[in-house]
């Protein structure tokens, strides 16, 4: 199987062709100009990862709390993560970097605050 993907690492935007075998393993990558492209293509075709950022309502605060996954998480879990976030309750004060939800969706990755709220 072949997959065409656009490299997102720089404005050149190389279009790469990735050949996959029946087990879904990457056999070859072509069309990239540099090594960053190949690395991205391999990841993107096997386990695409994304950072998730969001806001959640925060008690005692006029503005909501902005949060992120401390590391990128598998892309197919985006909506599961968002659903878990809907159930989270927080109240100010919150520190920057504070863990708001540990091990979201069993990914081993925490949701952390991206701003302090007092």
């Amino acid at each position, binding site marked *: 199987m072949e997959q065409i993907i656009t490299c997102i690492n720089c*404005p050149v935007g190389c279009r790469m062709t990735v050949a996959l075998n029946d087990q879904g393993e990457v056999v070859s990558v072509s069309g990239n100009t540099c090594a960053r492209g190949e690395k991205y293509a391999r990841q993107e075709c096997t386990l695409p990862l994304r950072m998730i950022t969001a806001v959640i309502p925060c008690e005692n605060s006029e503005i909501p709390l902005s949060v*992120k996954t401390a590391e990128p998480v598998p892309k197919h879990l985006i909506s599961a993560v968002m659903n878990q976030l809907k159930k989270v309750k927080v109240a100010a004060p919150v520190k920057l970097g504070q863990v708001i939800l540990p091990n979201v969706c069993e990914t081993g990755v925490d949701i952390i605050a991206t701003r302090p709220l007092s």
Partner: protein
Amino acid sequence: MNREHVDILIIGAGPAGLAAAIAAREDGIESLLVLEREASPGGILRQCIHNGFGLHRFKEELTGPEYAQRDIDRALELGIPIECGTTVLSVSPDRVVTCVSQARGLRFIEAGAVILAMGCRERPRGALCTPGTRCAGIYSAGTAQRFVNLEGFMPGQKVVILGSGDIGLIMARRMTLQGAKVLACVEIMPFSSGLNRNIVQCLNDYDIPLYLSHTVTNISGRERLESVTVAAVDEHRRPIPGTEMVFECDTLLLSVGLIPENELSEGAGVRISPATSGAVVTDTFETSVPGIFACGNVLHVHDLVDFVSDESFRAGHAAAAFIRSSAAPSAWIDVMDGNGVRGTVPQKIQTNPAQPVQIMFRPSAVFRNASAVISCGKKELLRRKAMIFTPGEMVACTLKPEAFEGLDGSEPIRVAIEEKPQEQR
């Protein structure tokens, strides 16, 4: 009325104002003041909760609020006074700043130097002439971003986005994640001005279609928006009859570009460049009015906040130097846009700069395997090759003071992009 006095007054506590203040204080300026009309510092970054900021400056990817916090913390550490909830109403050519706040009413502050760091704002609907009724449900993408990320409510549930700039793309993802359905992103040009990364991660990830060479031809709805009509356009950007599609939606977001916010600057008599819509400045970021400096998005619209901070640190150092010495440079070299280049900043460089000079500009089109060339008459000051230059990416080149040796200002410096003959690929 009593007049206060400060050595350096900075208008705006976004990343530009904060960096300028930090630099001036680090240079030993004790008497400085930052005025910010919002309730807290951080500027537009407060609402940019996505990540991707700071890769150049901090070598890590931060969200907007995290990036802003680093400068806020540093400013507080240095004891820099930031007065929030204070709006600057005017700046006079002799640097008297009029401002108003609920806490302290109307005030006049005399400043030894003023740094303009008011940022930019989005083009409103009026600037676009979108046809149709004037119903509720039409917002600029940045306004929607503010609603969702700072005020915590959703402006609508079924959304069409006009314009595929980065802010529009980011909002397509945000609205989707917060539960809305984004039906389409519509772009009049045959290409998107947004980053590839945002097209992939904000549209493709959520199967949101991008209609290139399309525009909104009608808007309908009585009180609230009910539908928009989208049609393909020809090469002259005129809608092609028969290609119309109707999208039922309650929200239309406009993401059609940013303009520097220069009412205050114009009031102070600062000359504005038609190419950048920002002030005309020297290599030390001084405007046409002595002692008034400008940096960040109010000077020219940046794509990367990292560049905003870098530029603003230099503006802060320059303002501090201005306070310390009264010796103004005597001879200047004009800087002009050459082929393939638009909006070069600075527009004037002193003939013997003491510091390295950074020249920034936007390519006017996409150029592959080309070189940016900075020259003065026959003398080439700098040549830099790149695989690609695009209008979406500002180019920054640094020239060492030695590069200016022998230049006397009789000829301008020209910044251009030279294309190699088309043998590539």
